[in-house]
């Protein structure tokens, strides 16, 4: 699966600007989601007004597009105040839409900041809505959690740390954060110790007496696998690479580290299932655009996304099409 992120300049009204001739159909015809960023630390009334205009436009011509509103830079604000803002923005948009006779428009709200994992979580949720047969993926993970007694399992896009699926227990920020950071740790170790070629002598020696086996036969798993036991509650975390782009990360229940062999067998099965899932999805090469529109300069979109262009799945890497303002 491939996603393209288009980053739009915030100062320009793309629907009403003679100097700026976008081919509307080319942009929005194929798009799956529109992310609108509102600066919560700024006066957002104008941004909300412009968002309303945009939603009305889109609802008339492209009603399939999910509209994802990121109420951004909430890091400086108190919890109560965040919720107040979210309520206020929601009401302003819903009221305007119902005045225009539009009900049930696909508008969702997310509180985000680049200073914690909320921005990744929000992007994850946006992306998940665009994944065909997401339910099937979720069912596989839910099953795995049941058989292995996992507390929580995430399927990560390794490059962006977006999770593209999780099991059916409610996702919480804390478990997402630790799993996401675990992926980071693994990436770092992989770079330092796994990204340079070893010498032939090294390999020869390892395959010689008393082992007498090619290295391939000496390992249990061809893909990366990892586990960690936390000191306090002894809740282990495990990671298994699914392919070059995806990794399964799970938080296990207390004491289950001893059952690692059985767990590994179950994980093997699920990983195989996941691989097949993405093999089937691959030939379609579905390109789903997620437009990112900043509301007014400086709302903070450019740096905010977890990497421009989330390339998910077993497909090849592509340079995402990014419209720069």
């Amino acid at each position, binding site marked *: 699966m491939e996603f393209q992120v288009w980053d739009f300049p915030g100062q320009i009204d793309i629907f009403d600007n003679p100097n700026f001739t976008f081919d509307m159909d080319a942009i929005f015809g194929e798009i799956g989601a529109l992310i609108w960023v509102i600066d919560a630390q700024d006066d957002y009334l104008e941004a909300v007004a412009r968002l309303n205009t945009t939603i009305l436009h889109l609802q008339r011509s492209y009603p399939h597009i999910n509209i994802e509103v990121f109420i951004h830079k909430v890091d400086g604000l108190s919890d109560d105040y965040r919720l107040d803002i979210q309520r206020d923005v929601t009401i302003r948009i819903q009221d305007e839409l119902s005045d225009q006779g539009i009900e049930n428009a696909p508008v969702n709200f997310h509180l985000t900041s680049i200073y914690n994992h909320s921005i990744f979580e929000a992007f994850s949720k946006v992306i998940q809505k665009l994944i065909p047969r997401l339910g099937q993926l979720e069912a596989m993970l839910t099953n795995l959690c049941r058989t292995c007694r996992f507390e929580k399992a995430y399927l990560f896009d390794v490059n962006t740390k977006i999770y593209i699926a999780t099991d059916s227990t409610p996702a919480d920020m804390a478990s997402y954060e630790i799993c996401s950071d675990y992926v980071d740790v693994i990436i770092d170790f992989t770079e330092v110790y796994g990204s340079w070629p070893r010498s032939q002598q090294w390999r020869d020696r390892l395959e010689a007496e*008393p082992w007498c086996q090619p290295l391939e036969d000496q390992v249990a798993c061809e893909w990366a*696998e990892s586990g960690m*036991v936390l000191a306090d509650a002894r809740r282990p975390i495990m990671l298994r690479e699914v392919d070059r782009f995806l990794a399964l990360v799970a938080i296990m229940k207390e004491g289950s580290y001893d059952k690692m062999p059985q767990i590994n067998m179950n994980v093997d099965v699920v990983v195989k299932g996941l691989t097949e899932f993405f093999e089937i999805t691959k030939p379609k090469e579905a390109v789903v655009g997620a437009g990112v529109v900043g509301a007014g300069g400086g709302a903070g979109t450019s740096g905010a996304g977890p990497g421009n262009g989330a390339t998910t799945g077993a497909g090849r890497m592509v340079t995402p099409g990014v419209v720069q303002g």
Partner: protein
Amino acid sequence: MSDLETTSAPSAAPSAGESGPPAAHTQLKKVKKQKVLLMGKSGSGKSSMRSIIFSNYLARDTRRLGATIDIDLSHVKFLGNLTLNLWDCGGQEAFMENYLSQQRAHVFSNVGVLIYVFDIESRDVERDLATYVNIISALVQYSREAKVFVLIHKMDLVQPITREDVFDQRAALVRRKTAEAVAIMHKAKPELQQQQRLPTHPRMTSPTLEPDIDLQLFATSIWDQSLYKAWASIIHDLVPNLAVIETQLASLGVAIDADEILLFERTSFLVVSKWASREGDRNPYGDRFERMSNILKSWKHTCSKYTGTPRNAEQFSDFEYKMGTTFSMFATKFTTNTYILVCMPPGEARFNSAKLNVAAARTWFKFLDGPAVPAAASIPGAGGVMSSPHMIAGTPSTYAADWRMAAPSD
């Protein structure tokens, strides 16, 4: 250097001679105290560094630090047998003048290490250097054997492409000033000239005025791993029994067939000692040691956030990572005061036996946990035999052999 405490205050560090053989390099010394001065202009980042390295602050937490008033003294226990008396000296001008005048003898005597921090962003370089020269003069006067570490700090604020040049220029300047300061002191007090010259440090290039002082320079920033590199070097020379640690680590590495072993102090996650096989030495990532410190330390933060336990508490006990046919590694709690990271060639049997052997080798490293363990008892046949790789390998390699026998049939 390692005998500084003994030479300047003989009563403070009794020799371990009574419990071990007299061979100097295998002696296991008892608790060593080191006076470490942390100096530099106000706002240069001294307290920030100290808080990150020893108190588990995050880099961004340091924005909340206020200016240090006078001297903030802390005692940092490092491993079991080293105490750093860290003198974090507030850098405001009035304080600096006071250190150089009224408190001169108090501040500058018995110093083991001076860490001097320059803020690369500072506008008034001339003035900073003048202050530095005064500090060096006082140091040479009262603790002429002290080591000096100069940290050119906040390098994150310099464009990455010019960082090296900026650092080299500033380093050359600091070296020259240091040499001048030392030369002036020698002229003023000719008796200082009779001291024996310390071996030339490889980093020192100044051809004419070689400072009679052990000086090392580092480019640092709290926003990347460079901080860990500098501080690992600083503590490296202070750690007692380093030769023993290194020998033991090498023996362990050979016995378990590892490619690399890193030994970390448990709170700071500074690398205390490291060993690499011939293949491990080919690793092109020269900065990997400080990188590992940085990675593991920030992982510790993540865990503490997740578990809700204090940052200084232990956060993980066991970690393994096998990357197919490329490599395997594990990191685990080792002795009370250390963590160990072992990088292995791939292979299940090899990995499992290495884990068992590392666990078995714990007892041989018990001496890292402090003076409570009598030196002679902690290491079988301490003295002489120690340097032989067979000694430590004793039990573990038998283990390894067993595993090897079993491996092919698995």
